[in-house]
């Protein structure tokens, strides 16, 4: 029997594996996807992005997405739409493929309800822990995951137990200076964006080599602080971890006394196998974690494990916001600036943090805002070329297509922005189980209702406008921006909310399932609200916190 069985191997799982293996416990890791090593991650747009080799197949493992349609909801399987909702299924999970824009949540994000009051038709709740509880673990991540950056004071800067990041900022493009100058003129706070990327070698990992292909790609130097390179592989070196890739868990078996006894899984050959352990940890990303707990229903848990109060799968959140870009024409720039702007690989790494909280223009009262990250438009050439294929509803072919490609690739560079604001938890965003669609193993798939809350669109609109003002001030032309209500599948959380009251939450404050004594959930699904930042740093930090609790218990 193992001490701990961890299901999943991404950012929520890896800190538990790492800490408990190093503390001397025997850990088995069941990962659905294959084990791609660093060598397998090439700068190959076909593999990563056109054919999704790093994610599950939407044909073999569909999911059902419900989107608003008229007054109701339209449910379409991803096997029908072809629009995959997967985002990285392999050892290390989607953190292999992240861009690594790392922001801590702020103290007010832990008490959104008491700080700003209720929002109509939203299920906002305070966290059962505070920023101070998580701070030591945020700091631990800076060292273990490897976060580079520079602390710059501003109004909403969160308290830190250390003065600065352990790794200096990565190299920057000339455009970062243009953003700084624009921000100074406008009088708004812009900071260097912290990145989960090593700017110098550490812990057997190389530093960033500025390949120009970071997000959506795996890292060939292990500079990126993905869960595999930063935690799983060091944990494997303890000799106490049994990593089992291509192991798809389909049920947790309980013993009738509110304890999980075994995890059942299909191995690579489709054979049913099981493993026993003292403690079980589920971290399959929010949606799949809910699905596993739901389909593990049995006599003891007729509606799924942890669903006694009907809370499992509710309060799913994504990251709301929007995006846009402005264009710099090389012709309009002096030769030196043109050359510097054209320098590939080095980063923009700027975030506008002025409006983390702002006064609602409608009421004059402060409301929670968000952040704006600036970055270059992705250089994926096929994707870039495909953007030139349409002129409205007309398909562009022939010499006209070639002229458009020339202009898009040769004459300009696009500076993008991405806005991150809170995704209000509410009644029309949740994970359910499909009654009709099954995956290749015959298991019912997740059905995800993806309604957006109007409040998020309003906040998103405000920030998109501010982002466009900054872009215009940098001298970019044709600045555009839009707010999106469609959920980004790589930024998912919630579904197993943590809290002190079992009637309104699935997990206790230590992320243990209220109804199952030895079962923990350590991916992003514990989060009642998400803060207006990407989740990965918080998921890592919380998993380190829970790992401490499990270690003490063992």
């Amino acid at each position, binding site marked *: 029997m193992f001490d701990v069985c961890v299901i999943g191997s991404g950012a929520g799982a890896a800190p538990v594996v790492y800490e408990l293996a190093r503390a001397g416990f025997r850990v088995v890791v069941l990962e659905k996807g294959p084990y791609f090593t660093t060598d397998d991650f090439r700068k190959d747009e076909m593999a990563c992005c*056109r*054919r999704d080799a790093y994610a599950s197949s939407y044909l073999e493992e569909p999911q059902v997405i419900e989107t608003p349609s008229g007054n109701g909801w339209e449910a379409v399987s991803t096997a029908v739409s072809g629009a995959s909702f997967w985002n990285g299924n392999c050892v290390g999970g989607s953190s292999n493929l992240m861009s690594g824009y790392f922001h801590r949540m702020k103290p007010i994000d832990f008490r959104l309800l008491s700080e700003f009051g209720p929002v109509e038709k939203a299920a906002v709740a305070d966290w059962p822990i505070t920023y101070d509880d998580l701070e030591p673990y945020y700091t631990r991540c800076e060292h273990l995951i490897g976060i580079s950056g520079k602390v710059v004071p501003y109004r909403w800067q969160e308290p830190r137990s250390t003065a600065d990041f352990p790794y200096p900022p990565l190299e920057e493009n000339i455009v970062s200076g243009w953003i700084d100058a624009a921000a100074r003129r406008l009088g708004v706070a812009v900071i260097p964006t912290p990145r989960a990327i090593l700017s110098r070698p550490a812990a057997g990992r190389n530093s960033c080599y500025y390949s120009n292909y970071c997000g959506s790609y795996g890292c060939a130097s292990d500079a990126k602080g993905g869960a595999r390179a930063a935690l799983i592989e060091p944990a494997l070196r303890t000799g106490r971890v049994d990593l089992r890739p291509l192991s798809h868990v389909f049920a947790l078996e309980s013993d009738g006394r509110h304890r999980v006894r075994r995890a059942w899984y299909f191995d*690579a050959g489709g054979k049913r196998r099981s493993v026993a352990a003292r403690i079980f940890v589920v971290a399959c990303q929010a949606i799949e974690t809910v699905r596993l707990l739901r389909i593990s229903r049995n006599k003891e848990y007729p509606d799924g494990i942890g669903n006694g109060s009907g809370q499992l799968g509710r309060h799913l959140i994504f990251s709301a916001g929007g995006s846009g870009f402005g264009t710099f024409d090389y012709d309009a720039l002096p030769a030196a600036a043109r050359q510097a702007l054209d320098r590939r*690989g080095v980063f923009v790494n700027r975030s506008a943090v002025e409006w983390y909280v702002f006064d609602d223009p409608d009421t004059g009262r402060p409301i929670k805002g968000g952040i704006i990250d600036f970055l270059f438009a992705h*250089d994926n050439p096929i994707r870039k070329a*495909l953007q030139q294929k349409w002129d409205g509803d007309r398909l562009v072919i*022939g010499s006209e297509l070639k002229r458009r490609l*020339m202009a898009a690739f040769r004459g300009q560079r696009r500076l993008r922005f991405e806005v991150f604001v809170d995704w209000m938890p509410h009644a029309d965003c949740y994970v359910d189980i499909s009654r009709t669609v099954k995956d290749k193993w015959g298991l019912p798939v997740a059905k995800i209702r993806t309604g957006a809350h109007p409040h998020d669109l309003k906040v998103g609109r405000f920030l998109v406008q501010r982002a466009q003002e900054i872009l215009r001030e940098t001298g970019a032309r044709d600045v555009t921006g839009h707010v999106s209500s469609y959920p980004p599948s790589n930024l998912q959380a919630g579904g197993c909310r943590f809290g002190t009251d079992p009637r309104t939450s699935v997990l206790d404050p230590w992320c243990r399932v209220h109804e199952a004594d030895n079962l923990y959930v350590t991916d992003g699904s514990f989060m009642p609200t998400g803060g207006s930042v990407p989740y990965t740093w918080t998921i890592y930090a919380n998993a380190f916190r829970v790992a401490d609790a499990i270690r003490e218990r063992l």
Partner: protein
Amino acid sequence: MSLTRREFLKGTGAVVLLSSVPVWMRCTEETAGPLSKHQAAVARRVFRIIFPDDGMGPDAERINAPAFLEWILRDPFYDPDIQQMLVQGIDALDAHARSVMGADFLSLEAHRQEALLDEMAARGHRWLSRMVTVVLEALLSDPIYGGNVHKAGWQWLGHYEGRPRPDERTRYEVLMRKRRGGHV
């Protein structure tokens, strides 16, 4: 969930009838490949209209678009319905040419072939759109997949090449086999 994937694709006006044998498992007598000689010739001509030899960068031949299409059609990991759609669209184009212009596509004069595709492009024709995607993938994917010969596409557009590039041990099909535990 009333739609199946095939009905969904058909609903977009692209597909006539879909057979149940995956394209990649089919070989014709003439070519031992997924396309008949005639189909391959039609596809080649369509590619040259989508991406012509006009003195501006490489054309469809130079980036090996016809062979790249065959690679897509032979790929056991690719969406079989899209593969079917690509092949059947070629036949549908011939049928369309006969009904509108009274002759097979290849028998038409060049300007009439172009007019036919222009008219389809104006309607945003789904199959033609897929063929444009094939051309752009052939133009800008890693040369290991058969298109972008001698990096002609990358060089023409000044693309900044990422390193390390895929090799025979790490190309997409190998990763897909790894995903399936060695099984196709």
